């Protein structure tokens, strides 16, 4: 049987396959959207103390 031929099984499962495809698409859109919102609102920004420790100590937290 050629792989391109549409079997009766494909017709029967069409709604399931289309639904699953749309669900996965929506999932990707949601993860992307959430990431964009979180990044742009600064949720993933480094805390000032973490930055300043490295910069102020001149490379070593102990000041050596």
């Amino acid at each position, binding site marked *: 049987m050629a792989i391109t031929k549409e079997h009766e099984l494909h017709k029967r499962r069409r709604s399931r396959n289309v639904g699953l495809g749309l669900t996965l698409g929506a999932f990707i859109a*949601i993860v992307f959207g959430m990431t964009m919102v979180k990044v742009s609102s600064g949720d993933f920004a480094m805390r000032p103390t973490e930055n300043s420790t490295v910069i102020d100590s001149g490379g070593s937290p102990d000041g050596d």
Partner: protein
Amino acid sequence: MSDASFDPTLTDTQEAQFGDYFALLKPRVMTLVVFTAFVGLLAAPVSVHPFLGFCAVLFIALGGGASGALNMWYDSDIDAVMKRTAKRPIPAGKVTREEALAFGLTLSVFAVVFLGLATNWLAAGLLAFTIFFYVVVYTMWLKRLTPQNIVIGGAAGAFPPMIGWAAATGEISTASVLMFCLTFLWTPPHFWALALFVRMDYDNATVPMLTVTHGRRATRNHILVYTVLLAIFAIGLGFTQVGGPVYLATAVVLNALFLKGAVDIWRRDEAASEADNFKVEKSFFKLSLLYLFAHFGAILVDAGLTRFGVL
């Protein structure tokens, strides 16, 4: 090599379609979950990014749907013997119990984790507790054990506004607890009024119903007691931070009408009810549908008026 999922004996009517998996989520129940969670989220005194708010309501709805799928998995034996539930995907032979269990568990974990990532872990924890409460405490433990099952099941359905509020604020407050109480105390009179005039086949499924185990007189008494408690908490909610003039006016009018309806039901006996084909019970049930929608709608209106600087 064989495709284990291919079964040529399955006919069109037997094989699960996408809609059958969607039906496992109990979409009608989900509408109440979406609406009340949305109100809880918007009534909170903290603004949430619209997309994260949308995600929060979506994940709360999916969590509620997942618990519905797990409920159908466990209750498939009793669903099969009741006329109202016999066409659900599992008793209809569209979805196997194992598929429903896997679907429900996966969706539960997904909804909780993503709600935590989108908002905060208090909201996610509350959602996880709601799923646990509905599936384990209600469905697996108490539903078949006590005629107070409606009260316990109602508690699970009452969590969404509290989760919505927690998603926005990261806290539990008096207002969110009272929003929980509103749905929690509304469920018993709403359902028992229906049980008085609709013949249900819970008996066949050996699920204890108050009308059968304690009689219809006791059911009328219970309706009155829960309605009085409901009125106290519903009007009390008007004096918290979600209350406003629209909510208070709505609550006073609707609770007066609801109390009158409950007293009328309490004063009647079976002969009087049968004489007018349960007219009072039916109108009380119809009012109960408006009651919950109007209360949460009024909270939404007050929140909108506050946000736009009218109040």
